[in-house]
């Protein structure tokens, strides 16, 4: 078996890299794939919290590279899904604790008996980014429809395009708010895609359910009713090569929009009668 190594990156912090990693990883595992999530945000680890695994971590990625344990010992299995495991970041060290070569080596080893290795990248374009990208051949660039997030995503796309090892990179647009797009207060999906000139792999609507799912340590893809969960499950299916249509987020209309629709309908009916 030779697994695919996908790095999840963004440039700007706080746009949802870790949430995306946790959810895509869980969704891929639920679909029957063997998945390892690697948290490379050394010093600021959070992926363990989102998966609810914070109490089970014994060894971290730094312990692996410094020879205190074997790679297999450091992989923490998910509570619900035995297909999913986590290689956690160390909390007490910094980004220089692991080198590009060491991360590449870990990815190569994990490729042998896993379908997907998802690398959660730290914010920024410094060494932490270089390390996270080192072992990957695919990338998902997470951004939101905001000025600074888009500008930073553009920088990241430039850096990824310059790397020969990265065979493909796709855009994941997170925290989309259809009601703000409808009132022209937020850039639309089309606007962002046009600006960044990058293919889309997913559109995730803003969802308050994300907050409670993080608090519970249970990724939102496990909630069958959630729209964001549905969107993340669709991303996982696209990664697996399926063609899945993007969710139609526009039906989420505000009150005035609904009244307007009602009046338009009745006017049409009156017209038809006359």
């Amino acid at each position, binding site marked *: 078996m030779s697994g695919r190594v996908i790095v999840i990156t963004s440039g700007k912090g706080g746009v949802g890299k870790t949430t995306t990693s946790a959810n895509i990883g869980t969704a891929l595992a639920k679909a029957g794939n063997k998945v390892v999530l690697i948290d490379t945000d050394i010093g600021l680890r959070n992926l363990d919290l989102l998966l609810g695994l914070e109490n089970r971590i014994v060894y971290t990625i730094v312990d692996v590279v410094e020879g205190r344990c074997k790679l297999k010992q450091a992989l923490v299995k998910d509570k619900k899904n035995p297909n999913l495991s986590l290689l956690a970041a160390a909390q007490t060290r910094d980004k220089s604790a692991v080198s590009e070569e060491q991360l590449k080596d870990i990815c190569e080893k994990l490729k042998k008996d896993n379908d997907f290795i998802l690398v959660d990248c730290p914010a920024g374009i410094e060494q932490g980014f270089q390390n996270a990208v080192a072992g990957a051949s695919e990338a998902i660039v997470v951004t939101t429809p905001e000025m600074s997030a888009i500008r930073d995503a553009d920088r990241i796309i430039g850096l990824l395009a310059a790397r020969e090892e990265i065979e493909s990179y796709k855009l994941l647009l997170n925290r989309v708010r259809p009601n703000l797009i409808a*009132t022209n207060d937020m850039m639309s999906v089309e606007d962002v895609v046009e600006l960044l000139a990058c293919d889309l792999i997913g559109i995730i609507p803003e969802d308050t359910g994300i907050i409670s799912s993080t608090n519970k340590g249970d990724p939102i893809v496990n909630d069958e009713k959630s729209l964001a969960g549905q969107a993340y499950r669709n991303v996982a299916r696209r990664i697996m090569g399926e063609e899945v249509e993007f969710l139609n987020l526009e039906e989420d209309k505000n009150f005035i929009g609904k009244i307007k629709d009602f*009046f338009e309908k009745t006017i049409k009916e009156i017209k038809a009668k006359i």
Partner: protein
Amino acid sequence: MSFFTDFYNKVFSFFKPQDTAENNVKDVARSRLKLVLMQDRTNLTPKILEQMRGELIDLLSKYVELDKELLELNFEQEGDQVALMLSIPVIRAKDEKEIEEAIKKDALLKGITLADDEEDDTEEETGTDELQEETDKDSEGNQDETLPQETSEADENGESQAEDTENKNSDEENVQETV
């Protein structure tokens, strides 16, 4: 019937958000980002863009009479390719004679500015502050030393002379001044 639709439109234009430039935050964001991304990607500063614009006006004015104020130089995204879009409002095409004259004048101007540069270089040794500044600008602006100076001269002409046809005379005057 028309009463119904009129009433409907009146009622809902009240609720509808006005699509004015100020209200349309999305378009403001998009155009701001467009410019910033192009600058990030190409490393072209507004100053260099302005210089490029000036040089293009000079070049094109030899062949057509154009509206300098309305000439637009923009970047456009076409797929993953960045294209430079130039929109030139043409007032009228010049006839053969005028074009020939303009080309001759241009050649003359280049010859003179080259000579001018040489003069600057020799006089630099004498150490006049102003001249030193001028040559500094030339060397940092462009490898081809004649180009930046040429445009700055043309820009001055453009501002002082509204009529393109009268430009030639003033160009010649200006050249004489610099010599």
